[in-house]
Structure formats: C-alpha cells, structure tokens
C-alpha cells in the first residue's frame, strides 16, 4: 500500500516535471515549386517532430493575410509580400531563404512582344499586390509597352488558371498573364506562350523566404534553427531523389506530371545556404542578414 502511494506521488511529480510540448507553429504558404521543401518535410513527418504545421492557401496574398490576422506564426513570401506585411507587422523578419526564381515567374501571352507593342488594348491578368505586379511593370518597361493600353484584371492564380480563355479571347484579343510555376503549365496548354520570365529579366529578382516575427525568433530560435536544418535536409533529399520527392509533393502542385515537376525545378535556384554576397545584395530588399539563418 505504501509502495503504491509512493509510486503515485513520484508519478505525479514526474508528470509535473515533464517538459510540455511546445506550442504548435503554423506556417502559411501557397502553391509554388520553391516551397516544395516545406511540403516534402511536412509529408515526411520531419516537421511533426518540431510541432510545425503548414496551411496551404491559394495565393501569396492570402497566405500573407493569414499571417497578418495572426492565424499563422510563419509565412512564405517573396520580397513583395514581405515588404507589404512589414507595414502592418513591423517586427516581421526573414529567417530562412528558400529559392530564387530563375524562370519560375513568367509573363505569358497569346501575342508576341511585337504584336503587343502594336496592340491598342492589352488585358493583363495578374495577382495585383504581389510580385506579379513587379514583374509586369518590369516587363512593360523592358518591352517598351505603353502602360496606358493595359487593362489590369486582379485575380489570384487559381482564378487565372480557371478562366476559360477561348471564350475570353473572343472579346479580348490581346491577353497578358503574369503567373508562376506550376500554374503556367495549364495556361501554356491553352496556347499561351512565355514572353518573359525571371530568367530573361535581369532587372528583377524574386526571392522566396520563410518569415516570422522577431519576437518568435528570439523566443523560439532553437526551433527555427531546427526548421532550417530540416529545410536543408529536404532540399538535399529532393535533389538526390526527385522522383520520391515528386510522389510526396505532387498533390501540393496541382498534380503536375513528373516531367513538368522536373522542369519547374529547373526554374528555381535553391538559396537556402546563401553566400555573403547574396545576403549583401538582398539587403536592398530590407532583408536583414542578422535574422537569416545560414
């Protein structure tokens, strides 16, 4: 009886002393080939060990909204969303660099640039308030197009993807779509052709990174560092065994084919282990190198 009592008391003590599971961290993300390491790590269960979950939204903007509202602790962004979020969430910081778009962001059109230069009116489908906007502006500038001829239609990438362009083209002769991989695949299948991309446009660089708040980084740095290691490991495994990575992550990428998957991967460059020069370069986008985990 006495032993049972001691066992009970010691058990209570041990239970009381046992470390409690850390609060679940949520990463708001969206569909982008550059975020494959996150999907991969999540599906492989690597994130579960850190009690990290991902929420997949339809656009970068929605992911940013989720973070802004406070329903996510971390968010995947390009420099555009990062800077936009910084206006309302002042202590947002980039912590893990993922990829640089190297053709992954592109401008599609049913016309050539020459034809577009001659057109009276051009309908541009894009996700306004995203990197799409930057790319489009840059495209207009570099292609010597007149911005006044443009009619901007603000849609998220899923909406853009779902538009029946055959019908649309009856009314709108000249269409420009700013999109990114893997959404480009279905659009290209409808006859749109790439007229510009981050590969061909030197003046713009698109950086994808995981951002969080400064306070979270300070309070939970170990977990963030562990997350960085998982990302590194996932990227390595994706590189080593792309087929396996494809099988695991295809559902997050509108179930594109393995070939399309491999092609998409070619349009990005992993920058998870950035050089000092890159970090220096990124500072002009307000990416503070102190917060970035190398």
């Amino acid at each position, binding site marked *: 009886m006495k032993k049972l009592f001691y066992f009970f008391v010691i058990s209570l003590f041990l239970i009381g002393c046992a470390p409690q599971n850390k609060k679940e961290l949520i990463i708001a993300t969206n569909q982008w080939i550059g975020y494959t390491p996150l999907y991969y790590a999540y599906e492989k269960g690597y994130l579960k060990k850190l009690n990290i979950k991902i929420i997949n939204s339809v656009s970068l903007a929605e992911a940013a*909204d989720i973070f802004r*509202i*406070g329903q996510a602790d971390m968010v995947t962004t390009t420099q555009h969303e990062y800077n936009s979020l910084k206006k309302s969430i002042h202590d947002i910081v980039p912590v893990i660099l993922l990829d640089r778009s190297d053709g992954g962001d592109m401008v599609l059109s049913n016309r050539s640039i020459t034809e577009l230069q001659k057109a009276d009116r051009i309908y541009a489908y894009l996700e*306004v*308030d995203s990197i799409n906007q930057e790319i489009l502006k840059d495209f207009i500038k570099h292609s010597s197009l007149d911005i006044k001829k443009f009619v*901007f239609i603000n849609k998220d990438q899923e909406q853009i993807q779902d538009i029946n362009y055959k019908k649309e083209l009856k009314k709108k002769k000249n269409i420009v779509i700013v999109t990114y991989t893997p959404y480009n695949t279905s659009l290209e299948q409808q006859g749109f052709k790439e007229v510009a991309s981050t590969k061909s446009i030197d003046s713009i660089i698109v950086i994808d990174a995981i951002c969080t708040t400064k306070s979270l980084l300070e309070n939970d740095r170990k977990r963030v560092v562990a997350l960085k290691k998982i990302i590194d490991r996932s990227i390595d495994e994706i590189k080593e065994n792309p087929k396996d990575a494809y099988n695991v992550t295809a559902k997050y990428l509108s179930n594109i084919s393995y070939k399309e998957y491999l092609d998409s991967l070619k349009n990005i460059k992993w920058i998870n282990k950035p050089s000092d020069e890159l970090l220096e370069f990124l500072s002009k986008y307000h990416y503070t190198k102190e917060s970035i985990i190398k």
Partner: protein
Amino acid sequence: MKTLSIKKFSLLILAFIVPTVSLLFFDFYLKQREITQELIKTNLQSAALSLNHFLRKNFDPNEIGNIVSQLDSRIITNKAISSIKIVDENNHIIYTSQQLEKSLAEDDKCQPITNIMKSNLSKVSCYDFSIKHYQGLQAHFYRVIIGLNKEYIAQLQTQEAKRMLGISLLFTLFFFILIYFLLERFMIKPLEGLRTYAYYSEYSPQKFLIKEFESIRYSLEMTFKRLRTEQENLYNLSTKDPLTGLYNRNDLKSQVQRIIASAKRNNNHFAIIFLDLDNFKNINDSVGHHFGDIILTKVATVLRTAIRENDVPARIGGDEFLIVLPEIENERSVIEVVQRIKEQLSKPIIMENERYNVTVSMGVALYPKDGEDFNTLLKNADIAMYEAKELGKNNYQFFTNKLNKSVQEKIKMQSLLSDALQNNYFQLFYQPKVDIDTQTIVGCEALIRLVDPYEGVISPDRFIPLAEETGMIIPLGEWIIKEACEQIQKWQDTPLKNIKLSINVSGLQLEDRNFFEMLQSNIACIESAKLDIELTESVLIQDFNDKITLLHKIKDLGVTLSLDDFGTGYSSLSYLRDIPFDTLKIDKSFIDSMEENKIFINMIIGIAEDLHLNVVAEGVETQAQLEYLKDMKCEMYQGYLCSKPLPAKEFETLFQSCSNNS
C-alpha cells in the same frame, strides 16, 4: 496537548478541503473563461480572415451595394460581431451596418486584428485591418472595422461563470454532505462505538465495514472474552479452594460478614462448625500427600451432601474445614448437621483395596453468644474443636466460657513460657528428704517453679504439661539439670556437700537423642553420685526397651535412679527387675490416706527392703504419719512436716538449723 474529538477534527479537515476544492473550481472557471475567450477570439480571427479574403476579391468602393447583403449576413450569422464598417483613407464611411452608427465614437478603441490573440476582449470594443483596392496598379487603402457584440460576449462568459459557480456550489455542498455522512457513518460512529465498548467492555458493536475498525472491534472482543475468563478464574482462585472447590478462607470471611450483618438486622442466630481431620498428618506421612488430597476431596463431598442447601462449607487450611449454618433455631439444628457429617464420614474410604477410616473433631461456636465477629467465632470454634480432640477425637464440642477460660489460661501460659527461660523466670525450689532415724536432711528434690513478675510463683502442674505439649520441656529439662549441677557444685565446700539432689526427668526428655550427652557434660564437674534422677512409671511405658538401655548408661555414669509415685500406675515389677533403680518413692496418695493404705505401704517398703532399695515416703505432713513410717522402717520421708520446697538460700538455712538441732 489539547485533545480534539474526531467529529471536530473531521469538520476541520472539511473546512480545509472545501475551500481547496472551491479554489480548484475557481481556477477551473478561470481557465474555462480563458478558453471561452480564446474560442471567441479564434472565431473573430476566422471571421476577419474570411472577410479579408472576401473583400480582397469583391470590394469595390464604387459598387459597395453589391456586397452589402453579404456583409450584413456576416453580422447576422456571427453573434460575436455587432457591426462591420469600412472607411477610406480619409475616414469616410464606405459601408456601415446599422448597429454601428450608435457607437462610432468607440472606434478609437479599436485594436489591430493582428493583436487579437494578445488582447483582452473585455477591454476592446472593435478590431480593424486594412484592405487595398487597386485602380489599375494604383493601390487605395481602406480600413475595415469589426465591432464586437460586447453584450453577447459578456453573456457568454457570465453564463459560464454562473453555471460554473452553480456547479461548484452544488458540488461543494454535495461533497461536504457526502464526506460528512461517510465520516459520520463509517468513522465517527464506529469509533464512538469502540470507545463505549472499550470503556464498558460490554455490548460489542456490530461488524464494521472499515477493515481496521473491524480488526480493533474483533481484538477488543477477544481481549474482553479472555479477560472475563481470567477474571472468572481469578475470582475462583481468590474465593475457592482449588483442591476441593469449596470456598476458601478469604471468601468465607466476607460471606460470614454478610451473614453477621443479616443476622444483626433480623435478630437471627447462626453457627460455625470448625472441623479438623483426626490424625490427618499420619495419613499424609504414611500413605502420601496424593492420598491425603483424595481424602480431603472426599471429605468435601461428604460435607456438601451432609449440610443444608444454604449452609456454606469452606476449607480454611490443610485439613481444616469450616461450615457456616445460617439461621439456626437452636443447638439441636447444629447437632443434626454435625451428626450427619459424623455418620457419613464413618463409612470407610476404600482405595486400592485398602480401607481407611476417617474421623473428625468438630468445634461449634454460635452467633452471637460465642462471638459477634468472624475472627472471634472462628477462634472459639477452633477452641471447641481442640477440646473435642483433647477429649479423644472423633466427636464434637460446643464452645463454653469455661473452655474459653482454660484456653485463655493456656495461651497466657504459653506466652509466659516462651520468654521465661530468656528472662530467668524459672527457679529451682528444694524440698528436703529427711532420714527418719536421725531426723537429718540427707537429700532434697529440686522442684521447678515459674515466677511470674505479676502473678508470683506458679506451680509446675500449670506449665509442665504445656511445656511437654510444646516441646519446651527439652530446653527446660536441660536448664534444670544444669542448674541442679551448679547447685551441687556450690554446695561442694559447704556443710551441704553430702546432700543428694534429685531432679525429675520426663519421658520426652528421655526420648531426646541428645539427652545422654547433655547429662554427661553437665555432671562432668560434680560427683555424679550426688545427682539422683526421679522417673515416674508413666515415663517408662513407651519404648521400654530403648529406655532400659539409656537408663543403664545413665546408671553407669554414677547417677542414681528413683522410681517416683510408685504404686499409682502399673507398678510393674518388671520395671524393678530390669531397671537398676536405687530408690522407691511411695506416692503421696498412700501417705495421705495412710489408714486405708497401710498394707500397701508395708508392701512397698517390703519390696524395697527385699530388693535392697532405698524408700522415700512422699507427702508426709503429720507426726503420726512419720511415726508410722518409722515403725515400718521406712528410711526417708519428704513432705511439709519437715518443709515445703524452698529456695536454695532458705533450704541452706533450714539445713543449718536442722544440723544444729541434731
């Protein structure tokens, strides 16, 4: 340390437990409240996110009417939201729900929706976030304000608080009552029952549910049972005689005291019979104590059957029994019982084919005549019993005052005797033996006297039998011999140097194995022929052969022997033949009635003459007696005619005066 009843202790514990439980409930309530707030916040967060997504895709300030119904429906479907308002960069209202109009002033208290999880719902009235609307690629910012339904939120929490408070109060009350009931039923009552049982040792409580209490109850029950048995055994041991099962002396005493009290109240009489087995010591010595015990048990059985129903039999000593006969009418009633006992005991006891006759002597004392308390009655019954033994045993005697007087005398004498030697109360008196022819004193008989400081001189008749009975005759006899020898020694160089001194020796002295050595050592310093030992015929009756040998040895020492009181006992001639007597002493009774006994006196003198023995006539008191003895050629006489027994000094004076006259 001050003691505390278990009831109070339990209440104290409850007084501690109940607030603790209440605190736990309160803590639980606070957590629940926090959870409720979290849920409301999450709900608001989701609503804001949904609204944000909706507005991102559908907001056009110029076509606000298209989304009004959808905005309104969000307020209706979400009770936590009281209003939605959209304002432009210049704070112009683009859209507002009706409810918000009243509380426009409160907009300043709005918190950014980003901070919702950290904010306190009770201190915030609204949350806001910004949305953009693009005209071309030109972004215009708008602020969306979500007003909180404070009343609903407060109600949610208050309801929860009331519910929790109610539950906690009910639970606490129920818990209190339940615990109190359980404590009362299973702890306090059993403990009280055990306390009562432990105090009164009766009315064992019924079995308890709690194992430990049941163990205590069972242990107490067993202990009390054992104690009762031991108590009973102790009571029997203290009140009953273990061998016979009769009452013992202690219990009898208390019973007699009760009977005395009752007799006093009712003016009744009762009797005590003191019963002692005759010669029981012989039975024990000859057949063994085991048989003695069987005899005692049989006697007890006889007593039980012989007495009346309310009579009280007891064993008060080895072979001593006592029977109390309460409420007797007269002595006849006692005699009936005594006779019954005698009759039943007269049947022989047969053991191992041997028949044993057991007889008893009984003494009876009556209340109140012979005593008014237990000890007096017991003593007097004992006296009566001894009298019965004295009278030949196997009979009974009632206690009488005369008997009491003689016993008192005996007791007094016993007391006097026990200290007399040490205190020099004994003294030898000397009665002269006179030669009838020459009228000179030729000898004397030393006679012992006890000189009581209060009573004066006490004759040996009063104490010698007692000395013989108590065995004191042995040291007393030794003292006499020693004293006589010293006297002979004292007279050695005086005119009394030829005086022969006679002493009396009892049969018990002769039976003493040290007697001869003692005599031998005492006469070593005197001329032994000057000492004469007088023996009576009765002394020689028992163990005659042994005594002949001893007397021959004494004779060989040179001491002369006289046969005292000759003619009164068996007067066996064999004594005269076998024992080398030197002198015959004619008993005083012959001299006292000389006329009637002349023939016997002549005969004794003749025998002495024929046997060449000296003759001394005792108790000569008159001249006529002396003349006759002279005619009969009796050699010596002893008696008051010459002198009564005198102390040594007076005897010496008498001797001197007689010598001078002759």
